[in-house]
């Protein structure tokens, strides 16, 4: 590709220039701080090469928060542009780029890593394990995700962002209509991150199946572990579809194949199908763990066992099967037969049945419980009515005939924000606050947390509720502006106010993190809320030691930690320690991922030689790994004694 340097580095847009300068200054500040405080070795040894699932979990969550910020800024830019008719804040091209990156970032680089981060931290603890099945792979998963994310994010300063929507429908996304590097970034960045997600899927699937502690049968697992298990299964079968879809479009764009193109008898609808065969399961990948998090929080703060555990498990499994049978509901209007539309309409509506079952189970769990209104519980409580609104409008969309009216209007936009925000995002906040003391040894301040909560949920409803009516009034999605005569001004303006309230709430949330780090009292026990039910609270200290459990706990029923407390047992005080085998740090994953990122960056600009060199580099690191027979090390009994003595003070 022949590029002038000023096409390579994006210039001429004040917003982008501002971002470039702040990124530059930010990076310089980070590098300077690390050097000044001599923290490079610490960073490398304790974090970047760590295979500890807890540290990887925290790194995932930090990245996700960063992406929530970036994606949030995108969202606020969209809402600013739409606040009034005829705004000239973003030109149409820039607008297209911003909503495209917003969607990709929020789903793939925010929701997924946030949940995977929480899963990483919590699930091994909940099943009473000391690590995951494949710790090395876990580190590699993180780095491929991170490099994919970084690659996607530099697109707006180097070369230009993708602008064909997060769905990247062909033929719009083909070379003919989207020339330039933007769409290549989309394909390659998601490909790299997606491989990481697939590895996470395999890793946690095997971990949960094979590494549960003694006595924990499948039907004694916590609900979060169950939802994780099923989510991983969905990942294993859905992500390869994405891998293929992206690869095919990459071939079209980089190597001249004619699969989705208008030339050579290609078929653009094939992309649409493949995308949603992955895409619909994907929305369940980001909602099931959220259901799990809410289940934990609700039963903890209602002080009751989860109502109808078995029905919950059955409904999760049903949802996972159905999630593969509904993809056509995303394009009812795109020329299917009436029979096909009817079939997919019915399967889609069927999904609401198991979902409804779950809603009732949560309500019955709280019924007659002694509820404590902590911040995580507030988020969980807010989830229920808001998610029901999202679900009900989903069923409206599921009626194929009616969808001709709603499709690609703000009604749809509002539907998926209601399910994704009140489902996934609330769960991420709730889960982070709930498990925060486990991760950092202190709680987040409840008072500030409640402010953030109220401002956020009010802002959320102010932002998205009007959008249902905008949709019914016929406002299409993805338009960069409208006129006074359309009659959409008032509702759009209200919606924008709501968006900024959510932005404010996010800032308060971040302030809370800093405030609590300075001022919150430090936790003294492993059971920070005093109400813990599952094994993650059974560790000897507030932040678990790197080996998690000095003695692996034994389980006899559901809610094992609650059980131990009732019976007055503390299994961790058992004095008969044995040396513990733990895996070593790994440096190849980060090297391999960075090479992968560099190779992909070359391909974005059609610099095939960089791709080839990178490919060779990846093989070399893989060979190095194959010859690596390092088997980890043992934590000595003395070290365990010392750590546990400190913890029990």
């Amino acid at each position, binding site marked *: 590709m022949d590029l002038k340097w000023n096409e390579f580095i994006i210039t001429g847009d004040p917003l982008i220039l501002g971002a470039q300068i702040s990124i530059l200054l930010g990076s310089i500040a980070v590098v300077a701080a690390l050097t000044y405080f001599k923290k490079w070795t610490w960073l490398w040894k304790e974090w970047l090469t760590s295979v500890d699932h807890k540290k990887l979990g925290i790194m995932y969550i930090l990245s996700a928060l960063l992406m929530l910020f970036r994606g949030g800024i995108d969202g606020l830019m969209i809402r600013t542009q739409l606040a009034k008719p005829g705004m000239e804040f973003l030109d149409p091209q820039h607008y297209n780029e911003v909503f495209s990156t917003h969607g990709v970032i929020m789903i793939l680089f925010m929701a997924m890593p946030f949940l995977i981060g929480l899963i990483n931290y919590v699930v091994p603890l909940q099943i009473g*394990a*000391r*690590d995951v*099945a*494949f*710790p090395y792979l876990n580190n590699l998963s993180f780095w491929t995700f991170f490099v994919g994310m970084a690659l996607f994010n530099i697109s707006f300063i180097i070369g230009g962002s993708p602008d064909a929507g997060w769905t990247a429908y062909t033929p719009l996304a083909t070379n003919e209509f989207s020339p330039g590097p933007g769409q290549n970034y989309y394909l390659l960045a998601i490909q790299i991150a997606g491989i990481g997600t*697939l590895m996470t*899927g*395999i*890793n946690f*699937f*095997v971990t949960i*199946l*094979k*590494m549960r502690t003694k006595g924990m049968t499948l039907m004694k697992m916590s609900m979060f572990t169950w939802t994780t298990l099923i989510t991983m299964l969905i990942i*294993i*079968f*859905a*992500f*390869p*579809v994405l*891998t*293929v*879809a992206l*690869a*095919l479009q990459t*071939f*079209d764009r980089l*190597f*001249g*194949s*004619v*699969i989705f*193109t208008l030339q*050579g*008898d*290609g*078929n653009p609808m*094939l992309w649409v*199908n*493949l995308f949603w*065969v992955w895409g619909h399961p994907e929305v369940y990948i980001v909602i099931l763990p959220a259901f799990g998090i809410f289940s934990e929080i609700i039963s903890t703060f209602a002080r009751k066992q989860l109502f109808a555990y078995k029905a919950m498990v059955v409904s999760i499994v049903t949802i996972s099967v159905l999630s593969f049978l509904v993809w056509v509901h995303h394009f009812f209007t795109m020329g299917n037969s009436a029979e096909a539309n009817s079939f997919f309409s019915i399967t889609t509506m069927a999904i609401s049945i198991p979902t409804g079952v779950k809603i009732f189970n949560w309500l019955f769990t709280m019924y007659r419980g002694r509820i404590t209104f902590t911040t995580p519980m507030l988020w969980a409580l807010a989830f229920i009515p808001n998610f029901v609104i999202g679900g009900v409008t989903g069923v409206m969309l599921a009626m194929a005939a009616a969808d001709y009216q709603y499709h690609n209007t703000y009604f749809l936009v509002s539907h998926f924000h209601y399910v994704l925000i009140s489902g996934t995002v609330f769960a991420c906040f709730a889960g982070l606050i709930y498990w925060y003391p486990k991760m950092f040894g202190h709680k987040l301040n409840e008072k500030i947390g409640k402010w953030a909560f109220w401002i956020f949920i009010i802002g959320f409803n102010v932002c998205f509720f009007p959008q249902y009516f905008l949709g019914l009034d016929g406002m299409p999605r993805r338009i960069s502006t409208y006129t006074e005569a359309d009659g959409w001004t008032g509702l759009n303006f209200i919606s924008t106010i709501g968006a900024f309230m959510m932005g404010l709430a996010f800032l308060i949330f971040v302030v809370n993190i800093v405030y609590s780090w300075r001022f919150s009292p430090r936790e003294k026990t492993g059971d920070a809320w005093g109400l813990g039910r599952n094994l993650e609270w059974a560790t000897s200290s507030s932040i678990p030691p790197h*080996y998690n459990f000095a003695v692996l706990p034994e389980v006899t029923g559901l809610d094992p930690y609650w059980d131990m407390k009732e019976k007055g047992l503390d299994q961790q005080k058992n004095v008969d320690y044995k040396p*513990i*085998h*733990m*895996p070593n740090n790994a440096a190849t994953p980060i090297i391999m991922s960075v090479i992968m990122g560099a190779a992909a960056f070359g391909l974005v600009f059609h610099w095939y030689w960089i791709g080839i060199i990178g490919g060779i580099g990846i*093989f070399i690191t893989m*060979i190095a790994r*194959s*010859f690596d*027979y390092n*088997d*980890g090390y043992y934590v000595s009994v003395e070290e365990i004694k010392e750590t546990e003595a400190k913890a029990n003070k």
Partner: protein
Amino acid sequence: MAHDHNVNPNAPLEYQSETGRLNITGFWTFLGAEIALFSTLFASYFALQARVGDGPTSNEMFEAGLVMIMTMLLLTSSFTCGIAIHEMRANNKTGVIIWMIITLILGAGFIGYELYEFVHYVHEGVTLSTSAHWSMFFILLGTHGLHVSIGIGWIILLLIQLARRGLTPKTASKVFISSLYWHFLDVVWIFIFTCVYLMGMVN
């Protein structure tokens, strides 16, 4: 992993260590993902099968003889790979290495013919850009061929490790896993043979 001391001396070598068992389960799971991957490729191939545009159709290009040779090579290699694992169970390191080398030679022969076929098509003017049909043909077969090539490289590495370290639970589980991979690729080829070649030549 955290459970390495958990050793079971009565199981076959590759299942004896906890790591070995976990790796084998993990690999089966990975093969599940591979099934999803190839299914998607097959589905896409079928969706585009009739879309030949101005290019030739399959039965104008395919040659039954060549495909038969390739099929025989790969099927036989799956068989010899099975013998290698049999030798491993009998704790015969040299046997494993010899049969694996035969497997690799057969695999390399397969790849050789596949490359020959591709080059031949390109000479006849049929490329990735000819039509949607041929794009998918090259990508589906190319993905399989790439898998086989990676398998060859990987097994060579394992044989070096085997020669150096002998049969241990760790090397055994690695070799066993690579054999699962090899058989899987054979199964995929049977589908390619039936769905792409046979059906393509009948149409």
